[in-house]
């Protein structure tokens, strides 16, 4: 739940509870005041007119008293056979219960409440003992007023609570704004040049979070920088080392070429052997350099390629081959044309190596021209391309399939090659967070799958 919604709801619930409690307190207090006033009225009435009522009870007719006295009963001869009750003024429709002990009480008549106050009038000689006057007052209007006021307080309270909720939500949103900004800043870190968020967001708590985040990010960027420096140093070393090796190799090879062309003496055969050994060395050097390049591949080398551009790249490599084998390129176009960042030189290198393998080792054992199928399959969800190369050669034994990935390892039946080809392919795939799998092809030979992206689980 969003912070603003949370604070809004909290404000709403808190103020609703506060208002309900307050409404109850106020209503109780109001009820007390109102009922106190009823009691006062009854007591006052009793004080001013109880004696008179008893005294005149016999002599004037009740009807004359009606309208003068609000509501009362005069009981004479209480507890004797001559007990007589005279009702004066307004009476409840169901009639009041019999007069009780002197004092205040509340009775329920039907669905109405009445407040009663009974007093004994003992010192009126004309009526003698046991005269009781009871004054009554209906509480209906009082209760109605209490109910009304309680309802008003509650309705007002709920309106206020909703208002408080809205205000709480607005303030919550305001309070959350620095957090939102921090979130945006943090989300933008991926493409940011500097790994840091701002120092100030206007709220101390958020500033603390930002400071903690920045501390962590600073450690991280230091680590990244150190790694980048190490990688750059390694790349530089690899480039310099191969350069230093290539240059003398170049002059040695060219000198031997000259010697071979110029002389046909007895040493020529030895020169030719030396020359071909150097050529082998040159191939290994190029491959080792490719290995180190793939291991140290940098993000700038990657390029967004659509399926067509990727197929062009594969087409370029397949068409350069000058073998008698038939190479077929199939592009399985997905529903949407995917754009995916690949390292074109790496892909070229990998494809080159796999094709070379297929054309050299993947020929049918009977010596007929081979058939190689290169398929490009694009994952519809991730857009990651996979290159599948099938040949119709003798295949690679299941036991060898993992081992051939390692540098300087050859298949158990292979006699040629540096043993670096598949290692390069493996490194290129890994530079794309992908992997290489060796299996059997439906054509009968080897299938090499180069996934240039993470495989789906």
């Amino acid at each position: 739940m969003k912070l603003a919604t949370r604070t809004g709801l909290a404000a709403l619930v808190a103020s609703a509870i506060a208002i309900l409690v307050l409404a109850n307190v106020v209503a109780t207090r109001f009820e007390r005041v109102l009922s106190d006033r009823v009691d006062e009225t009854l007591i006052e009435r009793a004080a001013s007119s109880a004696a008179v009522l008893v005294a005149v009870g016999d002599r004037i007719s009740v009807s004359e008293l009606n309208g003068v006295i609000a509501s009362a009963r005069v009981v004479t001869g209480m507890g004797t056979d001559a007990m007589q009750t005279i009702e004066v003024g307004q009476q409840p429709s169901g009639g009041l219960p019999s007069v009780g002990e002197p004092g205040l009480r509340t009775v329920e008549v039907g669905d109405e409440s009445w407040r009663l106050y009974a007093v004994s009038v003992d010192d009126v000689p004309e009526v003698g003992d046991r005269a009781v006057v009871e004054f009554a007052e209906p509480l209906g209007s009082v209760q109605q007023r209490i109910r009304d006021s309680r309802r008003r307080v509650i309705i007002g309270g709920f309106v206020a609570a909703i208002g408080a909720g809205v205000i709480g939500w607005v303030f919550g949103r305001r309070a959350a704004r620095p957090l939102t900004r921090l979130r945006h800043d943090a989300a933008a870190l991926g493409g940011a040049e500097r790994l840091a968020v701002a120092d100030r967001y206007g709220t101390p708590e958020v500033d603390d979070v930002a400071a903690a985040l920045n501390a962590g990010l600073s450690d991280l960027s230091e680590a990244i920088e150190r790694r980048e420096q190490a990688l750059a140093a390694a790349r530089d070393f690899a480039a310099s080392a191969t350069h230093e090796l290539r240059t003398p190799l170049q002059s040695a090879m060219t000198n031997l070429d000259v010697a071979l062309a110029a002389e046909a003496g007895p040493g020529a055969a030895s020169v030719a052997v030396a020359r071909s050994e150097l050529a082998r060395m040159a191939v290994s050097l190029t491959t080792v350099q490719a290995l180190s390049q793939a291991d140290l591949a940098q993000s700038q080398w990657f390029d967004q390629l659509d399926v067509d551009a990727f197929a062009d790249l594969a087409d370029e490599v397949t068409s350069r081959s000058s073998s008698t084998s038939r190479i077929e390129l199939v592009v399985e176009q997905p529903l949407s044309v995917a754009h995916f960042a690949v390292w074109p030189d790496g892909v070229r290198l990998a494809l080159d190596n796999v094709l070379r393998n297929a054309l050299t080792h993947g020929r049918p054992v009977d010596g007929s021209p081979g058939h190689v199928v290169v398929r490009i399959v694009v994952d519809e969800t991730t857009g990651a391309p996979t290159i599948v190369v099938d040949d119709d050669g003798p295949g690679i034994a299941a036991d060898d399939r993992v081992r051939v990935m390692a540098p300087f390892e050859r298949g158990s039946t292979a006699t040629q090659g540096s043993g670096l080809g598949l290692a390069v392919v493996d490194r290129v795939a890994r530079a794309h967070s992908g992997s290489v799998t060796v299996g059997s092809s439906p054509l009968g030979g080897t299938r090499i799958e180069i996934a240039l992206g993470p495989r789906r689980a």
Partner: protein
Amino acid sequence: MSTPHAPIDRVLVVEDDDAVREAIRAGLALHAFDVTVAHDGESAIAAVIDRMYDVVILDVGLPGISGIDVCTHLRRQEIDVPILILSARDEVGDRIAGLQAGADDYLVKPFDLSELAARVAALIRRASLRPAITAVVRFGDLRIDTDRRRAFVGDDAIDLTRREFDLLHALATNPGVVLSRLRLLELVWGYDFDVDTNVVDVFIGYLRRKLAAAGLPPLIGTVRGVGFVFELR
């Protein structure tokens, strides 16, 4: 094993490493080229301005003025001698920078002497076989002026290196015809022998990008497994 060519073909070899320079000199002399050597960029520029050469073989990693700078300088002076660059250190970066600076082809060290000799001979032969026909080829908004060796979109010239122009010309004069990589190597570079290079694809890439940047629709298509075709789609 010498490649047939006119005996007076003059080659300038620019290379700072003494052993490599001398080896290439001896090797090309064996293939009957008239070889002159320079050991840095400044003397290379001076040599080219001083004398006509048929091909310049240029090492990229020269001290001082780099091979790329030499290339840029010569092209800016409108000297269109074929330039073959030799890349050694940063293979990919050197190659791209060199070809974009106007070089015609590249070789990565270490290479075979016969490969170098064959390419040099082909570049010379190709340079002497430039079409002499004065013609203007039009393709929608694209106008190719063979005589001035320039391409235009409306009145704006497209900034093409010479080899890019040659490639565009070869494609545009064969509209609708699928040209294989081998055929393009032959038409544009003069390589009529088996050559292991992706230079066609590299230049097709440059050309496509420059034509698109000039606001033209895609004109160069790939026919998978065959080659490239120029057509207004």
